[in-house]
C-alpha cells in the first residue's frame, strides 16, 4: 500500500496517525488508552488523541510495542532518490562526530569550532540516513551557503523556504524565522532536521518550530551551545544531548589556522574625555538614585522602564547612549582602523562593530562595502564573492557575519566594538580561522581605555581561545 493509497481513508478504518498543524493526531483509539507517551493526550475538540509532532517517533514506537496496527498518514517524508555524489575525505574528528551521533540514535548536538567543518558532518549524516532533510539556519546568507553546498554534494535540486522563496524539495534549507512560520505545514515532510547554529533554537518561538516537526532524526551544530539565559538544556529535548565536542584550542594549528589576538587600547582626547565623564556621571547618578544595578539580570530593562518615566530619566538614557557612542566610535579608533586597513591592504579584513550606524560610518569613511541586515541577499552575495576574489580587501559588518558564513580567505578581523558576549567574540574569531595554506590569522580588538568598554572587553575575552 502506498501513501497515495492510504491518504483518503477515514478514521473508521482503524488507528490512523495524521499530521495536523504541528501535532500528530492518533484517531481510532479511546481516550483512556494506556501505554502512549506522556505528551499524547485526549483532545475533546476533535475527539482523538493528540501529541506534539516532535513526539511522533515515540508514538510510533509505543503503538508498535503494543502491537496496535495503524495507518501512518502523518509521515510524508521520502527516502532520498540518490546518495551523495561528491565525497570529501572527512577529518578524523568529523568521522568521530558522526559515529557519536549515530550511537545516540541519530539525535544530538555536535559542537565544533567555526571553520572545523560542521557542514560536512551534516552532509555525512544526510547521506547516512537517506531521508528528506530540512536544514534550519539563522540567516539568509547561511541559507544560500547551505543551498550551494548541498547542491554540490547531492547533485539534486535544493529547496529554499525564506527570503521570499517557497520551494520545497526533499532537501530544503530554511531560516529559524521561516521554520517557526511554516513548520505547522512542513513539519511532516522531513525525516531528518539539521539545526545549524543550534544555540538559537531554545528561544521561545524557534523552539516551537522544532516541536511542530515530526522528524525522528535530529542533528544540532554549533560552536557555542551555552546560552546566557540558561535555556540551553532545552536543546536536549528538541534535538538530543551533546554527543561530540571539540574546542578551538584542540584543533588550532593542525585543522584550523594558527592565530594571534592583539588588544589595542586607544585614548580619548581631553575634550572627548571631559564629555565622556560628564555624560557618564549623569547616567551613573540616575542609576544610584533609582537603586538600579546594571549587573543584575533585570538591570538594563529596569533602567529602560524607569528612565522613561521622568525628564531626569530621559536625560540619563540620552547620557548612557552618548557615553557609549564616545567609547565605541572614538576618533582614535577610526584612525587606528585606517592604519590597519593600510597595513593589511593585501589581506582580507572584516571590521566588526556593535551597531549598524558604525558600519555605515566606516563604509562611507573608508569606502569599503558594508553588510548589515538591510543588505539584500543579491548584494551580499556579490560583496562576499568580490571579497573572496580579491576585488575588495575589507568589509564592514555588525552582527550578521558573526556566525556561520564561510569566508576562508578572511585572515584579519578588527573588532571595533562589540557586546560583552563571549559567544560573539569567539564567533568573530572563528570567521578568520578556516585553514589555508601558510595562513596566519590575526584579530585586533580596539578598546577605548579608561571607559566602560575595558570591562566589556574583559568579559568577552573570558574564553580559552583568548588565553
Amino acid at each position, binding site marked *: 500500500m502506498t501513501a497515495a493509497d492510504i491518504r483518503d481513508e*477515514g478514521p473508521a478504518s482503524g488507528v490512523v496517525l495524521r499530521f495536523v498543524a504541528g501535532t500528530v493526531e492518533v484517531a481510532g483509539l479511546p481516550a483512556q488508552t494506556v501505554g502512549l507517551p506522556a505528551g499524547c493526550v485526549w483532545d475533546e475538540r476533535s475527539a482523538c488523541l493528540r501529541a*506534539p509532532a516532535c513526539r511522533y517517533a515515540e508514538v510510533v514506537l509505543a503503538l508498535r510495542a503494543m502491537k496496535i496496527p495503524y495507518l501512518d498518514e502523518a509521515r510524508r517524508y521520502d527516502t532520498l532518490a540518490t546518495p551523495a555524489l561528491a565525497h570529501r575525505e572527512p577529518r578524523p574528528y568529523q568521522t568521530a562526530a558522526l559515529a557519536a551521533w549515530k550511537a545516540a540514535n541519530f539525535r544530538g548536538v555536535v559542537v565544533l569550532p567555526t571553520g572545523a567543518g560542521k557542514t560536512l558532518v551534516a552532509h555525512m549524516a544526510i547521506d547516512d540516513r537517506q531521508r528528506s532533510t530540512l536544514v534550519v539556519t539563522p540567516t539568509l546568507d547561511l541559507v544560500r551557503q547551505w543551498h550551494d553546498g548541498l547542491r554540490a554534494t547531492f547533485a539534486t535540486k535544493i529547496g529554499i523556504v525564506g527570503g521570499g522563496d517557497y520551494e520545497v524539495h526533499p532537501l530544503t534549507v530554511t531560516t529559524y524565522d521561516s521554520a*517557526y512560520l511554516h513548520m505547522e505545514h512542513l513539519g511532516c515532510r522531513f525525516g531528518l532536521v539539521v539545526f545549524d547554529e543550534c544555540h538559537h533554537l531554545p528561544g521561545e518561538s524557534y523552539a516551537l518550530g522544532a516541536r511542530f516537526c515530526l522528524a525522528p532524526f535530529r542533528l544540532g551544530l554549533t560552536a557555542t551551545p551555552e546560552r546566557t539565559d540558561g535555556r540551553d538544556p532545552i536543546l536536549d529535548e528538541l534535538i538530543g544531548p551533546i554527543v561530540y565536542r571539540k574546542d578551538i584550542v584542540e584543533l588550532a594549528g593542525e585543522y584550523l589556522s594558527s592565530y594571534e589576538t592583539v588588544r589595542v587600547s586607544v585614548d580619548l582626547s581631553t575634550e572627548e574625555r571631559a564629555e565622556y565623564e560628564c555624560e557618564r556621571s549623569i547616567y551613573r547618578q540616575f542609576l544610584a538614585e533609582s537603586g538600579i544595578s546594571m549587573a543584575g539580570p533585570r538591570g538594563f530593562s529596569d533602567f529602560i522602564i524607569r528612565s522613561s518615566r521622568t525628564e531626569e530619566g530621559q536625560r540619563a538614557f540620552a547620557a548612557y547612549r552618548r557615553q557609549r557612542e564616545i567609547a565605541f566610535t572614538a576618533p582614535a579608533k577610526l584612525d587606528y582602523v*585606517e592604519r590597519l586597513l*593600510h597595513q593589511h591592504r*593585501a589581506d582580507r579584513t572584516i571590521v566588526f562593530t556593535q551597531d549598524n550606524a558604525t558600519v555605515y560610518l566606516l563604509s562611507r569613511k573608508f569606502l569599503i562595502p558594508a553588510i548589515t541586515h538591510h543588505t*539584500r541577499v543579491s548584494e551580499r552575495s556579490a560583496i562576499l564573492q568580490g571579497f573572496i576574489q580579491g576585488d575588495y580587501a575589507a568589509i564592514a559588518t555588525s552582527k550578521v557575519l558573526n556566525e556561520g558564513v564561510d569566508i576562508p580567505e578572511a585572515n584579519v578581523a578588527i573588532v571595533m566594538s562589540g557586546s560583552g558576549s563571549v559567544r560573539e567574540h569567539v564567533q568573530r574569531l572563528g570567521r578568520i580561522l578556516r585553514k589555508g595554506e601558510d595562513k596566519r590569522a590575526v584579530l585586533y580588538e580596539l578598546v577605548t581605555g579608561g571607559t566602560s568598554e575595558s570591562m566589556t572587553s574583559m568579559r568577552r575575552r573570558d574564553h580559552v581561545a583568548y588565553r
Partner: protein
Amino acid sequence: MLTADLVHVRRRGDRLQVVPLADAERPRARELAASALALVHAHVGLPRGALLQAWAEVAVAPSETRLARALFKLALDTCEFDEGAAIDPVELRREIFTRSASLRRSGVGEFARTDLLQEIARSRGVDVDALEEALYADLPTAHILRKADLPSPDGLLTTYELAQHQAVLLRAVRLHARVFCASAAGYRALFRKLKFHRLLYTIEKLGRETGYAIDIDGPFSLFEQTTKYGLKLALALPALLGCDTWDLTADLRWGKDRRPLRYHLRGGATTPEDESAVAPTDEIAALLSDLRRQESPWQASPADAILDLPGIGACVPDLEFVHRETGQRVYLEVLGFWSRAAVWKRIEMVEAGLPQSIVFAVSKHLRVSEEVLGDDTPAALYVYARTLHGRAVLDRVEAVAGRPTPNRK
C-alpha cells in the same frame, strides 16, 4: 498594529486591563494625534529619516511618551515609502568600493578618498554631495514618504483604542467569547473571519439565550500555552466588535516573564460592522453566479441560519438552497482549506443527528475523502480542487435532499 510596549495597561491581581483614555485626557490626546498627523503630512516627499528625526525632537512630557509614540506609530502605518534615488545605489557602491580597494592596494601614500569621489562624480556628471547622498539612498531611513492615507485626529484616536485591545490579544493563548447578534449576518461575518485565519473554534448555543459561546485557539494549545495564534486572534477582533453584544475573556502570557494573566472585554455594536466580512467572499460570490447560470429547481441564496446541535456544536452555513416547488431546504457550508479538524467536527455533528440536510465543500488540500459520509446521512462532502462548481454542488444538494433527516425519519 501596536506592540506590547505601546499599550497602556494595568494589572489587578491576575487580570490585565487596558487603561482607556479618560475624558480629561482626550483633548490632549487629540492634540498629540493632530501633531503626529501634521508632522507626517509635512514630510510627504521627504526621507523617512527626516520624519523620524523631527518626531524625536517633538517635546513630549514623560507621562505622555507612550501615548505619543503609539499615535505616531499608527500614523506611520498609513504611510507608503519608496526609494527615491536617481542613481542606482547598489551599482554606485560597487563602482566606488571596487575602485577604492584597487586604489588602496596600489597606493603607497595616504588613501585619497576625496580625489576618488570627485573623479567618480565627474564621470557621472553630478557633484560629490549628490554622490554621497546616493551612496546609501536605499536604506530605510533614506526612503521617501510618497503618500499617507491619514485619518482625522479623532479617527486616529479610534484606531488607537482598537489597537490597544489588539496589542493585548497578540499575547493571547486562547480566547473565550460570548456573542449575541440580531441577525445571522453578524455571526456569519465572525465565523468567516475565524475560518479565514484558520483558527480552531468550538461554538455552543447559550442555554435559553439567543447567543453563542465560542472558544477559539489553535491545535497546539493543547500542549503548550503558545502565543503563536495571538496575531490571528487580534486580527479577528474587529469581527467580534461587529456583534450586537459580546464579551470576551482571553488567557494571556504577558511581559518578558510571560506571566499568565486574564483579560476581559465587553461591548455592544459600537463599531460599524465590517461590510467586507459580511458580504459573500469572492469564492462564494463566484459560486452564486455560476449557480444562477445552471438550470435547476433549487434556488440558492446567502443563508441566515445557524445550525445547532445541543451538546455537540453548531455550524454556520454560507448558502441555502430552497426547492422551488416543495420548499425543501438544503444548506451548504464552504470549509475550503480551513481546517481538517473542522471537517471531522462537522462529520461528528451529522453522525450525532444534525436535523438539517447539508453539503460541506472541502478543499482537496485537506485530504478528506467524500466517502467519509455514507449515503445514509442527510449530508455530503464535496471535495473540490481549486474552484467550486455550481453543477457539482447542485448534484450533491439533490442527492442529500432525497435522504431522510433525523426529523423526517
